[in-house]
């Protein structure tokens, strides 16, 4: 708290100008998206460009629910995203603790191996994986997506990096106090890594929400499909209904933003610094 000098008025102006610029750059495409979502399809790319159509087609927003089972898709995607996020965070932070704080045989090699697998593009092993999952009876199940997404090397990698920045002394002190490793993980690491956990939840949620190729291959039954597949259903063999694509994308944005808004309060300074002074 102490020591934050007040900014000069000039610096303030510059600061807010930069921020305004950032907002413009990030939001302009969304403004276009909104504008397109209210037009008739043939007018989306018509020139001259109009920002607000004379007769905004609000029906687009009701059409997307009837043209494709968007409600079902939303629920499916929500279900998958939540389950995968929880599983990911649990297993990843669990494993990351070992990599960050415990000394054991093969630690470096195993970790390197983990990271190395992130380097292999999914397109490369997608088909053998599908054949294997089919033989396991997992084709056309949500379980398949969960199994594919919930155990990733990425989560382990990220949590490990954050755990590295938690001071050794904390866990040492706890060990001396007789806490088991599992206890340390639960009582010390997890609570002290709220920003990291939050980040992982956000990312996993968004990734699963936006995942296309997985659901495309594994979920061919309409009642199982997810939003991203739904979006592509507006692109047919000969044409694309761009207005509806935009409207559906706007709708699909909302739940994720809600999650982000509610979670990002965790990014607050001072969470970790307790107990270190001295």
């Amino acid at each position: 708290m102490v020591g934050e000098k007040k900014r000069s008025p000039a610096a303030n102006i510059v600061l807010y100008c930069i921020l305004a610029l950032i907002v413009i750059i990030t939001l302009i495409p969304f403004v276009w998206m909104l504008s397109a979502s209210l037009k008739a399809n043939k007018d989306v790319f018509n020139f001259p460009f109009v920002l607000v159509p004379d007769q905004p087609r609000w029906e687009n927003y009701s059409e997307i629910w009837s043209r494709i089972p968007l409600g079902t898709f939303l629920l499916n995607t929500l279900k998958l995203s939540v389950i995968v996020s929880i599983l990911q965070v649990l297993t990843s932070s669990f494993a990351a603790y070992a990599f960050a704080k415990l000394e054991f045989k093969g630690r470096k090699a195993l970790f390197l191996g983990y990271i190395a697998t992130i380097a292999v593009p999914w397109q490369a092993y997608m088909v053998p994986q599908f054949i294997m999952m089919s033989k396991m009876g997992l084709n056309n199940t949500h379980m398949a997506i969960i199994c594919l997404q919930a155990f990733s090397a990425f989560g382990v990698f990220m949590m490990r990096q954050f755990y590295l920045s938690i001071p050794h002394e904390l866990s040492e002190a706890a060990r001396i106090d007789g806490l088991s490793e599992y206890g340390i993980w639960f009582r010390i690491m997890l609570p002290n890594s709220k920003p990291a956990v939050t980040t992982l939840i956000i990312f996993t949620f968004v990734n699963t929400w936006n995942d296309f190729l997985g659901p495309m291959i594994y979920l061919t039954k309409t009642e199982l499909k997810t939003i991203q597949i739904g979006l592509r259903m507006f692109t047919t063999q000969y044409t694309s209904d761009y207005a509806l694509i935009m409207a559906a994308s706007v709708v699909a944005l909302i739940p994720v933003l809600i999650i982000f808004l509610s979670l990002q309060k965790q990014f607050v300074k001072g969470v970790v610094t307790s107990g270190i002074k001295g």
Partner: protein
Amino acid sequence: MNKKAGAPKNLIAYSFILPNFLGFAVFTLVPMVFSLVLSLAEWKGVGAVKFVGLENFTRLFADEAFMRALVNTVVYTALTVPLTIVAALALAVLLNSEIRGRNFFRTVSFFPYVASLVAVAIVWRFLFSPAVGPVNMILSNLLGKASTDMPAWTSATGPAMFFVVFFSVWKNMGYYMVIYLAGLQGVNADLYEAAALDGANKWRQFRHVTLPQIAPTTFFVLMMLVISSFKVYDIFLNLFAGGDNQLSNATRVIVYQIYNTAFRGLDYGYASAMSIVLFVIVLGVTLIQFRGEKKYSH
């Protein structure tokens, strides 16, 4: 008094890793290993697997399409990684300080990452379209030239690489900003106080306190950026491909070659050989960065 014997310690460590590793090994690792081994064979996706030794690899080096894809991907990575890091870090530092409406700005920065790629790609293609796109309209007004003289951003002859790099940075900076934000929370505030007392201004505080403290985060961001840039596919496909999902020479990337070779060409073995090359390159870069991390964080 609390020195445990080596073996139980290892076991405890393994028990932590087991849940994640088990799921990972069964569902991902096995098919991955299989596909990598496929690089020594010929396979059509069904039917018999025929071993051909290193034939796929010798084919690769004479394959001009693959070589071009390799070059494109390297250039793309070399441009995207530093730009994204700078943008993400700047945003994170900016949005970590006391600003009114901080939550709003953070959320806004995250928008691009969250939005569906299909939709934003359509938008960007339009915005940057050579003749009728707003960007070129504005540029031509500013520079006083005809709009037809403006760069053809989305065409392969033009500065397509800059276009896609710009797009990638825009789309992903929010993601890495969030990672940096989380990392910044871990920096002890007292360190800043001490530095301020020593007379360091904001910039020196940043260089000598912030940067070193978030080194593990930077390492992570760097790694993930490099890997995902090498693996890029969807972005190129959505920005440049026509209805037939095909990319031209100048905008072809490695994973695109892999996908096309496997699915359209029914040549899984050859595609796997490409994956191996990609894998080896990324592994090499990873190892280099690992060395860097060791030197830097201790």
